[in-house]
């Protein structure tokens, strides 16, 4: 069985997660319910004319993809696989608005063209002249997981491949207002950093994370062991899935040095994760991430980046720990346990593989 190595990553998120610097050393605090990405200067990737036509989801997607490929030392990947929960919301909103305002007349096609979900992955292909496999998944909070699973299967089929895979989602003014009307977010001015003190609500987030995976060993030393998604699973099904996941990898709960929990701030949805962390992983250091990246369909892609960084740097940053929690020493295995809306649960198991040949 071939191993799946992480050979490069690019991440744009509401924290500064690109460029040099210590992992999550400087944390950006927000007192609103909307966490927006800390974006790089895009002029290194696009000319001004291109930039004017591009929505943020496209800029973030192509830029984070480029960062990942550069880190992996790959000019053109063999496959590009993208996950996005909402797709290109900005262009969709622009076209819908014009459709209503102009009463279906004299419409500019550009936002329509750029509204389909596969625009992100196909723009990367177009920029790189990559004629290989190109795929886009959109399944709420399984979007990144679907992409990751496809990439893993591809490498199992052909270990020599270099696969670019990731998750991208943007917030727009419209999407934020609409989701807020559903009563999804915190309404007071609590800082995102205090999100889990009293489980008082969710903050909206966004982000773009691309990773390069390959069956060929690089000096990255981190492997993806497995990914699993469970739709509308009950407590028993989740416990069974955890046991299977660990068992299939020859691990037990105590081997999981760090558990990255996708608690969102919603008490009801978080309870099952917190209970499982307490009962099944009493020895693991529990870290959280949605106060840093916000809640969004591909938040697990942020967690993936975080988990790989922890394994690489062999240290768990304080910013993900609850007050008073002491981090365990360098974890060998990290389990990401994400949830979204209480209906979508997923697991990603990452493994340090320094010793393996």
């Amino acid at each position, binding site marked *: 069985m071939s191993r799946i190595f992480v050979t490069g990553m690019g991440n744009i998120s509401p924290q500064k997660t690109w460029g040099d610097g210590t992992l999550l050393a400087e944390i950006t605090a927000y007192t609103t319910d909307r966490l927006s990405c800390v974006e790089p200067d895009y002029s290194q990737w696009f000319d001004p004319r291109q930039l004017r036509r591009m929505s943020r989801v496209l800029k973030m997607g192509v830029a984070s993809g480029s960062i990942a490929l550069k880190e992996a030392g790959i000019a053109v990947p063999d496959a590009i696989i993208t996950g996005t929960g909402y797709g290109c919301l900005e262009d969709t909103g622009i076209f819908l608005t014009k459709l209503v305002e102009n009463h279906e007349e004299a419409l500019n096609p550009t936002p329509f063209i750029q509204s*389909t*979900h596969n625009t992100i992955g196909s723009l990367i292909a*177009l920029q790189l002249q990559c004629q290989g496999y190109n795929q886009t998944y959109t399944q709420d909070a399984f979007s990144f997981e679907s992409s990751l699973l496809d990439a893993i299967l591809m490498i199992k089929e052909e270990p020599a491949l270099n696969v670019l895979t990731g998750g991208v989602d943007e917030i727009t003014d419209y999407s934020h207002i609409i989701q807020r009307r559903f009563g999804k977010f915190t309404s007071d001015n609590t800082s995102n950093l205090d999100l889990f003190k009293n489980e008082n609500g969710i903050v909206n987030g966004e982000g773009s994370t691309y990773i390069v995976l390959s069956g060929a060993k690089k000096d990255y030393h981190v492997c993806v062991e497995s990914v699993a998604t469970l739709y509308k699973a009950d407590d028993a099904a989740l416990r069974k899935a955890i046991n299977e996941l660990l068992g299939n990898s020859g691990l037990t709960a105590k081997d999981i040095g760090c558990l990255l929990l996708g608690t969102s701030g919603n008490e009801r949805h978080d309870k099952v994760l917190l209970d499982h962390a307490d009962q099944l992983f009493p020895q693991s250091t529990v870290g959280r991430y949605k106060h840093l990246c916000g809640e969004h369909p591909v938040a697990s892609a942020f967690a993936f980046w975080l988990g790989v960084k922890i394994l690489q740097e062999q240290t768990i940053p304080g910013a993900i720990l609850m007050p008073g929690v002491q981090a365990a020493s360098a974890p060998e295995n990290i389990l990401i346990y994400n949830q979204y809306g209480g209906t979508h649960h997923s697991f990603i198991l990452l493994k340090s593989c320094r010793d393996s040949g």
Partner: protein
Amino acid sequence: MKGSVHVAGIGAITAIGNSVDECMRSFRQHTSGIGSITLFDSIHRGVLPVGEVKATNETLAANVGQPEYISRTALLGIQAAREAVASAGIDIAKWRTGLISATTVGGMDRTENFFPDFLQDNKKGKLHDVVNHACGRSTELIADDLGIHHFISTINTACSSSVNAIAYGTRLINHGMLDIVVAGGSDALSKFTLNGFNSLMILDREPCRPFDASRKGLNLGEGAGFVVIVSQRVLEQEKKKSLAVVAGYGNTNDAYHQTASSPEGRGSYAAMQKALAMSGLSLEAIDYINLHGTGTLNNDASEGTAVKRFFGEHLPKLSSTKAFTGHTLGASGGIEAVFSVLALTQQCVFPNLRFETAMPEVDIVPQQKFEETTVNHVMSNSFGFGGNCSSIIFSK
């Protein structure tokens, strides 16, 4: 790859029929489903022909026992997916069953109703009109209806989406992760797509004429098509008949332009090449190609060139069924997969309606009559915006 992945059931709802049998009858009778817009308001009503499914949301909702507001994409999907599962005659709850659906518009038909009020005042607009906006929601609604929890996924690679859904399902079965996959796609007509394609000036004001010299564009359609694919083990244990085998598939990117295909059809050529290589078949073995054949100047010239370059002397019988159904976008690969399986089970090829004169760019004369003939291997092409090209081969 272990064993074969078989098609055990099919379901479809399109402008030419609310079931597989009805679609088949329309093919035999050369009855097109293209007509005027009747189901929604638009300034293009009476001007731009479309391929509407002949059922209102109310009727569809009543048929499947779901609320009308859940989005037409979901209603069409539920109807076709149920038909596919019923025709397979397998209790899918007994097996590790997944649903992989494809859609490009998702709940857009409801979102566009929400927007006029919302733009006036952002506290207005009925929230139940946007709750199912996301493409993945239509899949979840279909999964809930079929009782599928084990695995769900949605693909949106524009008009090639459904073929990718069937290919992904086949891979998941081959990797031993799933036993059964309900795979295909669903897309409803919407003002959003109608106006989008209109703004690109690629909609024909007459019923479309794929691969014809006089073609002026496509007609949008709607519908859903699903296949139930199963492992060899499921087929044997359930003692079911294989309708077809998924023999090969290819997914490539043209990487030429965001909407236009390269003149030589390099992406579509590569997709056909990959699919054929995986199938292990020779060029001559392909008996019929269900073309993407949208009826736009660009697609048909590019696809025709690629087909001609690829098959050379061995051009099989070929046709686009979009003159019957319209272009059903993300659903087209699923619907045309159902038609491809029908070509194998019914031993027939479908007519390319309204064809008169071959394109000057490439000399291809498609099948013009419904014909009963020997069909052992069928190729189906689906290409989309963003250069996404996919091709799939079904064998007897």
